[in-house]
Structure formats: structure tokens, C-alpha cells
């Protein structure tokens, strides 16, 4: 934690120096250091975003529809950049979190709505993270009603003691195991021409399953919590308006890395599970099959480790973000530095979210893989609501000053919002008409 902090401070410091002697030729080295330093919030959010729900959604996409969903990756990457760039910029300019901005610009009622949406979405997302832990651990023969309560208590202790930052690196490393999909993608020797074709030419099947998956895909790639996470990280680093360009680079790199991983998951599962007619994935063991070309018999171990790492990372981050956002919006004390007496709301929200998730996951009536998917669909539905708040704030001159949205950027954001809403409505109509 210390070293990260220093790096950022070096970055902001360097930004100031650079501004002071802009014409000096020695800038090149500085700029490089600066980019490296700024590579933080965006990349972290992107990697944390490739969580249990993400793996479930992409694996299902590949397994059910082969390469047909590959085209979503570039599109999602674009949407992700829109959402995250705006969030980072808002953080740089205002120095406030997204929740605080919503409250200041929209008042109590609309914040209540937004925070309600966030609470629902994040609770389900946390639930899906624990489902990820459960399915990952089940690959090692540990039943859910042992792994989940233990994970729950560990996450609770880590979040409330604020010491999760120390574990963050370990979890990030574990989560990076999912990069194995990239290698697996090469090893399965797919038809690259086909893959390229499906990547750039959209294919849409008008079936509820396909649309639901598409929805889930949006919900997991651009999860609402990632917006809050990104902005609060930027604010925590105290990046000023002059570091907007570097946050842009960071956001783009993060979005591209995340999309590349999802593209390879789709590719690997599309090339292995789809021809094997696995259909809808029922458990982690099936999903792990996609890694068989890479790891052989160790595929399930590799997949299990990656899934558990990614899920635990998400589970550690999510309750804290949710609780901080809600407390920020309503002006309650927040942060792990405060004791229960000083910040009761913060502690209660975190505990409730965790207890809810753990209990729900332990309910054997629910299919773990289904839970992960449902959470993403809910995310997809709630995303446009938050994005509308975002575009309104980001184009407000009084808040953003010179850094407010350009017309084009606002237009693109609205395009994304409308697209997502249309998709949602289509999905609901189809389900209502019983086409499922």
C-alpha cells in the first residue's frame, strides 16, 4: 500500500513539475514515469471487473453460441471506455466520489434511487462473487458450506480492518491466472479467419437466451460498481485536473486488457465447449474444460485458482465500495479507519451485504452458475440509470468547468444508454410474450 501511494504521489508531483517547465526537453523520461504511475485505477478496476460473474457470462457465451458473441468485445470495450473515462475525469476535476456528486447535483430523492439501485446490484454481485468462491473451491473438493462461511468471515475481517490492501496484490496475482485463457486461446488453434470475421461482423440471434446473455455481458463488463470504484480510486490518489490525460491512457489500457481477456475466454470456450455441445454451463468443472488444451489434467486446478482469486478480490472490494458510496451520499462517516461507534452505518451495510450473500449462496436450491448470470443481468438493467446520472453531471459546466463533456462524448454516452435500454426492453418484452 505504501509503495503504491508513493508512486502516485510521485506522479502528481511529476505532473506539477511538468506543467511548470513544459518546454524542457528532459520531459520524455518524466512522461514515461508519469504514465507508469498513472496506470492504476483503470487497470485495477478492469482486472477486478473480470470476476466470477464475468467468467461465468463469457464461458456461457462461448459454450452456447460459439464465436457468435465475439463482436461484443470491441463494442463493450468502447462502452467501457466511455463510462470509465467520464468517471475518472469527474474524480480528477471535482475531487469527490460519484455518490457525493449525485447527491450534490440531484438531491436526496434521486440519490436514494441511485443508491438503492447500487445496493441491489452490488449485493447480487457480491453474492455472485461468493458463488464464484464456492464453485472454485468445489473443484478442490471443498463443499460450499465450509468454503463460503470461511470466505465470508475472512472477507468481513479484511474489509473492516482495512487490511485488505495488503492481500490485494496476492488476489490480483491469482486473478491474473485468468490470463491463461489467452494462452489457451492460442493452443486450441481456432480458425483465426472465422474469429476475425465474427469479431467485426455482429451476429444477433433473436432468442431470449442470446439477449439475456448479451445483457449479462454488458452488466459484467461495465458493472455499475466499477464506475464508483474507478472514481473513488482517482479521488483517493488526489489526481488533479492536470492528470486527466494520464487517466485517459490508464482507462483505455484497462478497458483494452479487460476486453482482450473476455475475447479470449469467448474464443477458448467457443472453440472447445461449443463443438462438444456442452450447452448451458452447469458448474465450474464444465467451465474449466476450456482450459484443458493448455493445462491438461491440471485445467480444473488452474481454473479453480483463478476463479477463487478473482472472486475473492471482488468480494473484498464490493461491500466496501457499496457502503462507502451510500455513506458518502447521505453524509455518514465511512472508511475502515473508523470504529463501529464512529461509523455505524458503514459497518452495518458491509455486514448486511456479506451476510445476505453468504446465506443466499448456501441455499442449495440455487444453481451457483445461474446466480452469477442473474447478477449480471440485473447490473445490465441498472447500468443505464447510473449512466444517465453520470452524463448529466459530466456535461454540467458549473461542476466540471473546462473539463465537461464535449458534445460528441455526450452523444456517444447517450447512444450507449439508449442501446442498453432498448436491449433491456426487448428482452423483457420477449420474456413477457412467452417466447422463452
Amino acid at each position: 500500500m505504501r509503495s503504491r501511494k508513493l508512486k502516485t504521489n510521485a506522479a502528481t508531483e511529476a505532473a506539477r513539475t511538468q506543467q511548470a517547465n513544459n518546454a524542457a526537453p528532459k520531459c520524455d523520461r518524466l512522461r514515461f514515469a508519469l504514465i507508469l504511475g498513472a496506470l492504476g485505477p483503470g487497470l485495477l478496476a478492469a482486472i477486478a471487473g473480470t470476476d466470477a460473474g464475468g467468467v461465468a457470462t463469457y464461458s456461457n457465451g462461448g459454450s452456447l453460441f460459439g464465436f457468435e458473441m465475439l463482436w461484443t468485445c470491441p463494442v463493450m470495450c468502447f462502452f467501457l471506455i466511455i463510462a470509465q473515462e467520464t468517471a475518472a475525469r469527474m474524480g480528477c476535476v471535482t475531487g469527490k466520489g460519484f455518490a457525493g456528486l449525485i447527491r450534490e447535483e440531484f438531491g436526496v430523492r434521486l440519490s436514494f434511487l441511485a443508491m438503492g439501485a447500487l445496493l441491489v446490484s452490488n449485493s447480487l454481485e457480491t453474492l455472485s462473487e461468493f458463488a464464484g468462491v464456492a464453485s472454485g473451491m468445489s473443484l478442490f473438493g471443498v463443499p460450499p458450506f465450509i468454503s463460503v462461511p470461511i470466505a465470508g468471515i475472512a472477507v468481513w475481517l479484511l474489509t473492516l480492518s482495512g487490511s485488505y490492501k495488503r492481500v490485494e496484490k496476492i488476489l490480483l496475482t491469482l486473478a491474473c491466472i485468468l490470463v491463461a485463457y489467452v494462452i489457451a486461446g492460442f493452443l486450441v488453434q481456432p480458425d483465426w479467419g472465422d474469429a476475425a470475421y465474427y469479431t467485426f461482423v455482429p451476429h444477433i440471434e433473436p432468442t431470449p437466451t442470446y439477449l439475456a446473455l448479451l445483457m449479462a455481458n454488458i452488466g459484467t463488463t461495465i458493472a455499475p460498481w466499477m464506475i464508483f470504484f474507478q472514481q473513488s480510486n482517482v479521488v483517493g490518489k488526489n489526481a488533479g485536473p492536470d492528470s486527466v490525460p494520464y487517466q485517459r491512457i490508464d482507462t483505455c489500457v484497462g478497458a483494452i486488457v479487460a476486453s482482450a481477456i473476455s475475447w479470449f475466454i469467448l474464443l477458448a470456450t467457443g472453440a472447445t465447449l461449443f463443438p462438444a455441445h456442452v450447452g448451458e454451463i452447469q458448474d465450474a468443472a464444465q467451465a474449466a474444460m476450456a482450459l484443458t488444451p493448455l493445462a491438461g489434467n491440471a485445467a480444473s486446478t488452474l481454473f479453480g485458482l483463478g476463479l477463487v482469486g478473482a472472486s475473492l478480490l471482488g468480494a473484498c472490494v464490493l461491500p466496501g465500495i457499496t457502503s462507502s458510496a451510500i455513506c458518502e451520499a447521505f453524509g455518514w462517516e465511512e472508511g475502515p479507519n473508523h470504529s463501529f461507534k464512529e461509523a455505524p452505518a458503514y459497518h452495518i451495510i458491509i455486514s448486511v451485504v456479506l451476510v445476505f450473500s453468504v446465506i443466499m449462496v448456501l441455499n442449495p436450491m440455487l444453481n451457483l452458475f445461474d446466480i452469477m448470470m442473474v447478477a449480471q443481468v440485473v447490473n445490465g438493467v441498472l447500468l443505464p440509470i447510473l449512466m444517465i446520472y453520470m452524463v448529466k453531471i459530466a456535461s454540467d459546466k458549473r461542476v466540471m468547468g473546462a473539463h465537461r463533456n464535449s458534445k460528441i462524448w455526450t452523444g456517444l454516452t447517450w447512444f450507449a444508454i439508449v442501446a442498453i435500454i432498448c436491449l433491456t426492453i426487448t428482452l423483457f418484452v420477449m420474456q413477457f410474450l412467452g417466447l422463452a
Partner: protein
Amino acid sequence: MQYFSQMVGIPVYDSKGETLGRVKDLGIATGEVFPRITSLAFKGTGAEPFMISWRKYVDSFSDSAVSLKVPAEEIRFSFLQPEEVLVARDLLNRQIVDTHGLKVVRVNDLKLSQSGTNQLRLLGAEVGVRGILRSLSPHLENAVVKVAKLFGTDIPENIIAWSYMDLLDKQLKDVQLSISHRTLEQMHPADIADIIEQLDPRLRSEVFAQLDVAQAADAMAELNEDQAAEIVEDMDASQASRVLSEMNPDDAAELVNELDYEKAEALLRMMGVKEEQAIRQLLGYKEDTAGRIMTSEFLSLSPEKTVADAIAAVKDAEKDEREMTNYLYLVDEHKKLRGVLSLRTLLIKNDNEKLSSIMEKELISCNPDTDQEDVADAISKYNLLALPVVQEDGKLLGIVTVDDALDVLEEEHEEDLQLAGAPSTNDKDNGAGSHELRRLMTNQMWFFFWAAGALVMVLIGLGALASSGVPLGEVAALSNAGAIAGIAFLAGGWSGVLAMPIALLMSDSMINYTTNFFIEHDADDEDKPSMLSFIAHGVGSAFIYMLLMVLIVLGLLLFMANSGIFPIHVPVLFVGFLAAAVTVLISYFTSPLYLNVLYKRAERGKDTSRLTMRFISDLFSLVLFVGLTYLFCYLAFAIGLVA
């Protein structure tokens, strides 16, 4: 009309009764304790709201409407005056500093008060839950308040008066300067530091930018070093070095020690030579020694001078704001310490007396290498306000003041408490990793015992299963086939894992009960309750806990038996909880042992660590629990409950 939230949106009529628009915002005159509303902003059909003078145009107002004195045509619109603040735009929903309660809060609503028919004043900002509820809906607020009353609690309004608000917004800061009210600038540095600790990094720097250098330095000294270092790293270098120079060298040295090397070097080089030297010299001493916390700012004089000279010197020193001038140190030409004079002595002696004749020659002093704790002990033992620090050869280097000594004592006390297993009172401690781990270990030891115990039980279970020859993957499916003993052991183990925390936590609470009893009652206390009542009390409460638990478990079991949630036979699941119940009872029966040990050791003058006792009792409970679980497992199997 009481609240701004209820006033927003009510219609505005002109004298002819025509609707002009709806209330949008109110402007207040900031220069008063309870500011008058001076302007009314309302939104008509256009996109932009209009602003008019409240005093000139408003005739009357009620809960449902505002009426103006003149017809629409005669209204002249006005502009926001420099000393005016718009309540909805600038206050509502914003973060403000409550300079009275010393907290950062968000404004949920604004409370207004009517005086006369058309005068309105701002009473203050509502920052409590009721403001949120009211903004959602006044009915909701009423309902919640009534329900709370039913339960006997009252939800009070939480109002902060205008004079206790400090706005954080930079643009509004200028407005504030015109008012005589308690802003950040007038607060005690320790209070400023408290507020700063609650702020976001950005606001933190902004607040610091508002303080003058001297205040910033004082506040910085009050912050904990980690946070101060963070802020210094965010400040621009020249500002930071100015603040550091202004701080007392000992505080500055502590802070510089927290910075990373390059930044520290850069800052030190930008400071004045004298200050830099002072800080570098302090940094040269080892951590936790007197040298590190001493200050070189003290008042010294030659013993040959007179009382009059000394008083003049004290007055001079007071002008440059030295850290502490409670004592006058008398040094010879080689700077060797010869004697000490308190201000009190100076005051009661005649002006022409020589200092050498009245000075205290029995000196209490320390070396720069003396441990800080010893220094603090000496200061508290001799009731000093400062202790001189001298070199081997008697040369006076500096003094350690009582405030620094207090910090040391506080820290040591904290550490001692942690050793004793008490929860840390310093939540903001971000010490090294090992420290964190130790804290976790001491506070949550049961958790580690649980982890270890769980591992053992699962392994035993899996071993039993393996030896019975049932493949692991088929446990769930296997309900009535062979190898029931193996399954029983595995399932019993799982239930043990679930129930174990109860046994461990209760064993911790038994130790707490025992030590608290020990602390409250001395061995030779007359009215000390008898050992029997001690046991009865402990075991009795444990028994009630157990009854409650059994009730809950039974409920759960019934529920599970009906819904068939777990693929394990119900009675075996009960085993762990039964074992936990028995373990807790036995563990409470052992409490007199611990109490006796405590008294015996106290007699011999030894301290007993709560941590060690907890460790022993947790270990005992764990072993007992595991043993009992498998015993019950076996019994359940033997009498055929598992079939």
C-alpha cells in the same frame, strides 16, 4: 413554514393572483447569526430561474404559496450580491464542517423560522437522519418518528447553526470572511487536525491551503505522522518547506522521518540553514531516544546575569514564540548546564539578585540516548514541565517538553494494552504488517484456532471416508449405501466446523469474565463474592446461552429436515452444536482455576497476560471440542441414529 425542503416548489403569485412560477432557491444575508432571507429565486416557464428581492416584493407566505406585493409587470429582477449565499445551490446536499461538533457532515435540509408575516430567517442546517427522511417524504419522516416513539426512542433533529458552519467550497470561502463567526481559522490546531483527518485528500489539501503557515504547522504537529506525511507529499515543495520550518524541530523531524528519502532531502535543502540543521541533528539520534523528541528551542542565560536580565530575556523569547519558556537554563561559556530556574522563582526574587545564587543546582537531566520512556517517567515522577538533555560532557543540547513526554506515555500505554490482549484504541494505526498481524492475532485469536481446528476436522473426516472406501465425489449422492461410519465422521466434522466458533468465542468470554472479576475484586476484599457465587454466576449465564443456542439449532434442524437442504442426515449435524454446548459448560467450570492462578501470581507480584490465558483456554476448548464431537459422532452411529 419550517423546512426548506417543504418550501421548494410551492407557487409564487403576484398581487393579481397570477402564478409567476415555483420557488427554487433562497438567498441569505451571510453577515448575521440567524441570516435573513434576502432574495427569492423562482422558476417560471423559462429555463433560467428569476431572482427578486425578498424584502421589496414578498407580501406574505404560507405552507402552500408565496404572494408578492406588486403585479408581475412592476417586478425588477436582481442579481446575487457578493455577500449572499443561495441555500439550495450552495448549502443543501453539500458537505460542511460543523465547527461545534468538529465533524464533516452533509446538509440534508435547512430549517427556517418565520418572524412577522413576511420575514424569514435561516435557523440552521439539518444534518441528521430526519432531514433525509423528510426530503424523501414528510409522511415518511412522521411515520418513522412515530414508530421510533413506540419503541421508546426519540429521533432528535440535528441542526447546526449558521454560525457553526464552515463551508468547504472555495468560491464560498470569500463570502465567509466578512462574517464574525467561528471558522476553521479560529479553531484550536488540535481541533483542525481532527477535522482534517475526516476529509477526502482533495479537501484536505484545500483546507490546508486556507490556513496560514503558522496554523498549518500547528495543525500538522497534531496530526498523526502518517497522515501528515501524506499531506506534505501532496503539497508543493516551497509551501511544505515553509510549514516544516515553522514547526518545532522535534515534530518536524518526526514528520520528515516518514517521508521518502528524496522528498525529505529536497524539502530539507529548501529550508533555512538553522532549521535544517536542527532537524538533521535530531534525525541523527536513534528512534525512541530522548534526542529524537527534544527541541533545541529553549531559553539559556549565563549564571552571572541578574533576575532583571532574565525577565527581560523571557519577554524577548515570548515574542519569537519559542516552544516553552517555563524554565530558564543557566549555562556557562562552554554551554555546560549549571542550573535551572523556574519562572516562578524569577518572579518572587528581587531584580538585582544574581542568578547563580538562586538557581537550582540539583539537576535532573538525561542523555540524548536515554530511552524515551525513561524520560517520560522522569518527567512525570518529578512533576516537571520540561527535562534538559545534556551531552556526556555536560553540554546542554535541548529539552524534552511535557507534551512530547505525554505522547510517549500514551503510545507505551497503548502497546502495553495490546500485549495484554485488549483491543487497540488507536484505530488509525497503520503500522507495519507484522504489527497488524499481531493485532489481528491478539484480538481475533479464536479465528486462527478455528481455521486450524477446521482443517484438522476436515482432514480426519476425509481420512475416515477414504479408509471406508467411498469416493469423495459421491458423498452427496450416497445416502443409504454402505460406509455410513465414514460419512458420519465426515458430516460430524463439518458440523463441528460450523459450531466450533461458538465454543471458542465462549471460551474467550469466559477468560474475560474471569479477568474482569479479578480486576474488580482484590484478594483481601471484604465484600468479595464467594468462589461459589463466582462459579454459579458464570456457569449460569453460560447455561442460558446454551439453552438459547439449542433452541435456535433445533429450529434450524426442523427447517432443514423439512426442506432437505443438506445432503446429510440431520442428527449428525446436531453433533457439533451439542459438543459446543458441553464444551462451553466445562470451560466455564474451569474458570476458578484461572481465577486462582491470577490471585496466586498477583500475590507473588507477577503480571499475567490475558493473551496467554486466552491461548490456553482456547487450546483446551478446541481439544475438548474435537474430542467430544467425534465421541458424539460415534455414539450417534453406535445407537443407529445414522442409517
